[in-house]
């Protein structure tokens, strides 16, 4: 539902990145990283992106999305594991209170430019 606002924030930042590049540089692709816990629906994000770039200078821009699963670290035995089906207890030692180390990302990872 707020995916349109997210797209707007991405495009604002791309405007800034473009200004820092040499004159005439064209940003052809943007890579986003979206964690499982980011509260963002990737299909809505794609749809919001298409609607937002249509008939604008960003119309040619390609979107790549990397989805990041939730990963946990156990403070007891230091095991790192992917939390599938929300099972966050440590599979090695059974510790219940493990720490989220990945899956909350909502980032612009990279842009591709044509020189």
């Amino acid at each position, binding site marked *: *539902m*707020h995916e349109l*606002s*997210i797209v707007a*924030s*991405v495009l*604002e*930042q791309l405007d800034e*990145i473009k200004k820092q590049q040499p004159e005439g540089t064209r940003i*052809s692709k943007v890579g*986003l990283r979206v964690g499982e*816990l*980011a*509260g*963002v629906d990737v299909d809505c994000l794609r749809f919001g992106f298409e609607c937002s770039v249509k008939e604008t200078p960003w119309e040619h821009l390609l979107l790549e999305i990397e989805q990041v699963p939730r990963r946990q670290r156990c403070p007891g035995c230091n095991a790192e594991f992917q939390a599938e089906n*929300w*099972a*966050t*207890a440590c599979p090695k030692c059974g510790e*219940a*209170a*493990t720490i*989220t180390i990945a899956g909350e990302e*909502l*980032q*612009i*990872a*990279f*842009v*591709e*430019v*044509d*020189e």
Partner: protein
Amino acid sequence: MSQIVVEKKVLNENQKLAAELRERFRQHKILVVNIISSPGSGKTTLLERTLERMDKTKRVALLTGDLQTENDAKRLAKWGFPAKQIITGGTCHLDAKMIDKHLADWKLEDLDILIIENVGNLVCPTSYDLGEHHKIVILSVTEGEDKPLKYPSIFVKSDLMILSKVDLLPYLNFDAELAKQNARTVHPGIEIIETSNKGDGLEQWMAWLEAKLAAVKAGDAVSA
């Protein structure tokens, strides 16, 4: 063609402003909570019961977000604490800019607690840091026990879950133990308080607020 590594948060602007707000709250030792739930699960009602019980010497202020109407601010103003409505005009969440703008004519040095009632929505408010110390999620017993599994992000990010409307449990097939277990599945450390409009759990909730305020005043609060 070449690739430029960016590695920046998409909501960078919001994040920066939220960090500024957090610093201002820290300087003035104000406890800030951000209350999030689906529409109709009892955010405003909980706040009414809270203000009713609040020690009148406590300097509490409220910001309440809705798409339209001033109704909630009017409901909350009755208890004599300053309450301001944030009308988002369609936006489904509050962001740090809205908080900053609506705080402008309040003096932060005159406040102990700022309660932010977010727009009724379990998804979008999750992504926007408002500089708060604690996110609080409300789940009412007229919803599904599996809500923490369906909307895990907000349950992961909240320090406290309020299970509201528990006075209705005798009339429903809602399994409160299962709901709590589901919340603890996605967030093992989450605190849970069961409340109702009739008064259940409210003492415990007021004590929770009191303890968090004491931590902020002592300067040892861990911010979200």
